């Protein structure tokens, strides 16, 4: 299983076996930031060597409202039985070990495909998609366990639409009044410190599915 896990991560979405579980790493992740609080994001922050992005923030910090975005390349041929998005939280202060009992804002997951989903994080990713539901409540979370969200319905729609990419955007339900921000471990964080905290899209395909 461990071997399969790494194989699929390494190959991204390029291959898929019917009835198999495929774990995909994001093609891109980053943040959209509204620095002046006018409700319109005006900057994109993604990881670079000069300015590493180790956490994806959702909510409000001193330097503005943050929305987190992750995009995945979908396998060319797939019949989705089940799909989940898994992300791992950092503590509110971002230090280790994580402090128990801390909370970020209620966070909503949006899922999008089509033109905006293209494997790159851009400002246009901010308005696309459909709401998948609340994935983080405004209460203390167990930081020792990953957050797993069922996105099967959205994956099926995306696949049916012939989408090549799918994107996930996390944003606070009430951004203006958000008192804090959730911190999600980015791909770069996982690469540097803990592979197990990689934000992963897991797809289980149907037996005898298309392809």
């Amino acid at each position, binding site marked *: 299983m461990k071997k399969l896990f790494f194989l699929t991560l390494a190959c991204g979405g390029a291959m898929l076996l019917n009835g198999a579980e495929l774990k995909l790493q994001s093609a891109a992740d980053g943040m959209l930031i509204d620095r002046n609080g*006018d*409700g319109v994001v005006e900057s994109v922050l993604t990881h670079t060597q000069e300015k590493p992005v180790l956490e994806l923030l959702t909510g409000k910090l001193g330097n503005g409202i943050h929305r987190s975005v992750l995009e995945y390349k979908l396998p060319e041929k797939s019949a989705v039985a089940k799909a989940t998005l898994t992300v791992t939280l950092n503590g509110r202060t971002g230090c280790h070990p994580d402090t128990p009992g801390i909370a970020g804002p209620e966070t909503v997951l949006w899922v999008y495909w089509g033109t905006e989903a293209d494997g790159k994080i*851009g*400002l*246009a990713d*901010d*308005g*696309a998609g459909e709401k998948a539901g609340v994935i983080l409540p405004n209460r203390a979370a167990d930081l020792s366990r990953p957050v797993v969200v069922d996105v099967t319905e959205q994956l099926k729609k995306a696949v049916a639409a012939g989408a090549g990419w799918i994107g996930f955007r996390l944003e606070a339900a009430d951004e203006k009044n958000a008192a804090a921000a959730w911190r999600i471990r980015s791909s770069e964080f996982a690469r540097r410190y803990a592979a197990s905290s990689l934000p992963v899209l897991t797809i289980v395909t149907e037996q005898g599915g298309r392809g």
Partner: protein
Amino acid sequence: MKHCLILASLCCGPALLSGAAELPVYPSGGGLNLRVPVVAPVAGGAKGNRLPFEMVRFTYELAPHLTGLEAGSVSLFVEDCMRRPAKEVLTLGGPAGELKVVIPAGPSQERRFRLESGEGRADSRGTQAPGKWHKLLLTWGNGRAGLTQENGETLEVKLPENFTVQRLGCSASLVDELELKGGGGSFSVGWERDYSGRLVPAGQGGVTAAVHGFDTYVIGSDPEKRDYPLVQLLNSTQERREVTLRYELQSEVNRIRNVRQEKRLLEPGCSTMVPVMSPALLQSDVYHLVISIDGLSAPFRVKKNFLHVARRPEPAGPGLFGLHDCDVKAFGFWPDALPLRYAHKYLRWGWVQGPAFVDHSTAPEHDPAAPPQEWNWNAALDWELMAGRELFVSLQSYPYSAWHREREYPRGMKQWPSAKGGGFPDLKKYARFLRESAERYRGRIRHYEIENEPNAYGMPEHPEDYAEVCRTVYRTVKAVDPDVRIYGVCGTGSFLPWMKRALAAGATGNFDVLSYHTYTTPRQPDQANLRRFLGEVREAAPAGIRRFNSETGVLQALRYEADRPIPPETVALAAKERRTGFVSTASWPGRVNDEWEASASIVKNAVINLASGSEGFIFFGWNPEWPKDGKPWTEREPDFSLLSATPAGERTPSLLSLAVAVLAAQFESADPGKSYRWLDSGEVRGALFSKAAAGRVAVLWAADAAADVLVTAPGNELETVNVFGERRIFRAVPGAGRDGRGVFLLPLTTMPRYVHLADGELEVLSSPVSAVEVENIVGGTGSVALTLLNTGDEVWNARLEAGAVPGLVVSPREEEVAIRPGRRRKVKFDCRLEAGAKGSVFELPVTLRLPNNVELTRGCRIGVSASGAAGEVPENFVLAAGDALDGFAPELKLDRIEQAVFGRPSDTASIQEAHFWGGPAELSGGFRLGWNREALFVAGRVRDIHPRLPEVWPGALGSCVELFFDFRTPAEGLGKAQYGRNVLQFLILPPVAGKTKPQLWCPQLPELPAETVRLCGAAQDRQEYWIGLTIPWKLVRADGNPPERFGFDAGINGSFGDRDGRKAQLMLFGTARNFCDASKFGMIPVGKGRRGQ
């Protein structure tokens, strides 16, 4: 009413005196628009007035009104001036030759009169003192001429037996009370009122016409002014004559086509002035007028090309614009009808106090000890000063002879026929010149600039010397006239590093205003990042210093026919084909603009300058004698003339000339001392300026492609004017405005548009299109994606519709997206090139409906990526010579400035600077591609006049060739930026004569076996070599077969001649980052039917 009276007097103007009629005859040569004085006569004549301007010779035509001048006399007064060059005082000319009274060049105490004809000459024995009127009498007849001076001395020369006089020329400032008698009539000039002479006819007489007011190419509408167009009809016969005038008028902007005819009855001995242009026809435009007149003594048909610009009825501001010196030698050249402030003139030390060859005059080698009043002061500068213009004078210390110079420079010295030019000036001697200049012009000249483009000419390698010159100029001139303003740096091109060094060396504090030139041809100033560049200049300049643009022009395509510009497509094609006249190798960097591009460019350049804090802007290229005579423009280098001409030499204003005139008129009321600000916003570029009295003027244009933009302004109407002066009023979008401010939908293009506000502010509303992403067409497909932003409070169901573009199939044509408040969405249109479609750039209009139902259209420019061709070669083909592929494939040439990806001067550079690519004569090349089922073949030839191999190999810092290939399939990422498998860079060490064999290195295949890829090549001579490369398909293709297409690029690197390093790199299609970005390679199709071309 005033006009009516004046016109009436002009029309009825015969001067019938008792006895014989006196006809007014205006100079036909010696200046432009001389009907009304450019500079008025002043007191101090031999009797009454005189003319004060030196070095102007007027010519008067006497025939057919005064004939029978085989013998006659001229009495006149002559007062010599102090300057030393020779002067032609009086000339009598006819078909058999000329008779001249001359003052030969010489010191003031040695001045003599000379009488000369084609048969000989005689000099006076005694001298004549300048500054005093001397009476002379010139007689001729019976094959001899004599000049009698007031001391009784008579000079005599022979004349041809058939000598007769038809015209008279005289040096305007040197003569007075001139009277020619002969044939029973007379001609006299006395300068009491104007420049006209009075002619009393003799002989049969005749009927003639002269046209006034068109000479400067800009006409006015005030009959009192010299640029008011008139036809003067002269009837010196004894009979009443009827003439018929026919006018055929057409205009370029307003498309006026007007033909009219009028009859005039001319009384005997009568002069009549007939107005030419109906005021109703006078709009801002370029006009072409043919005037033909029947009933004259000789057939008369002239064509006049001119422009007119409408002024705004507003109080004028201080004035922003000026005209550059441009070596104008025509007296009265100034286009009075344009609201221009500064007359730029050079004051060259080496010309004023220098050797004769410099100004091509007959002045002798200058004596350094000559007194200043005898120096050869710039007469053209004095003319403009006397005409009341505000002078901006560029002082130049360039040494033209050894005594001017303190030391020579190791590089850049020029060898003149009799002396050497260049080096560092002798500042002590130069200071004397400066003192004398400042004294001469004290209180009359307010603006002095230190040198002209010293970073490019004179001192490019010596900014510290420039600092020394600044110190000398500033201290010397200010000591004489503390009120003058001194302008320093005068940088051009990429002058910033040079300026920093000059400032650090001490130039700071030794000038009051920072000056510069901002040429961007052929790129538009905004595309060339002129705003950013001027920001960098401001940052590097002394804090708070004022700034000024003292010269900028643009290269425009001249005309095949005077009446119409060459269409942009034709210019683009001619430039692409590098036809003579369309591409410059002497001025930088290359191709000319078509007239529309040039018009947009000069307006944007001025606006960006003014909005960057430049307090003035001087246009380069306004000279009514440009484009210069000589070879047709289609056979020579383009120049920066603001006027145009046909290959046959017919000069005409162009749309660019009109754009400059309209710019000056639209900004006449602007006041740079008041507030101004940028209006740059997304797809909009521009700025807003305050007017002197009240209101604002804005200039707006689309940054890239056509775009409708929303602006708000007070009221319900918005006045706009386009670059060619066409006025258009926009009405506010109904229901969209509030608080007394209307919302206006302005359709902008890349051509600037002026917007006038009576009061209040103009705001550009943020565009709903927050970004446009274009994937250029590669392999026939590409895309355009628009990101829309909903700034409203409601969900916006945006509907987008792509317009039809010939040659492009767009999918989808319509799209609708719901955008929540404050959010963005992206809409993408796939574009497919239709088979046989022509063009390399398409503009796709996308229309979107806003929540308030206003429809906006945004043009999106999508290009077709560059491509080349490969020829199919026989199966047994072997590449063993540089010309082996000549019959199979066209050559992909590397010889254009656009291909210089390294060593290319900045876009603001106007000239070639020594440390940049020196043109195709220095480094150029060409490549051909061939293929068969087994392999790909590349043959290249390179000209490199400084072959110097990279010091480190493998390396590209010296003479070498780089070849780039992208052998991926589209599914594998063909055309994508990242280097993947089968994207290869080959670095080739060239075969320099007698030194090396070609060597190959591929960083992607560092262990490539030598026999796998075959490299050959040889030096042809010391400056040229060829290389050949054979790549088997099996090495780069999984299936071992030729692909349908592949990515390709070729670069050549050239070295400095005298040191290691890379001076320039030319790349066929891509950029200097080809080694890490494969997306800019060209595309080479491979397939059947591509054999041999």
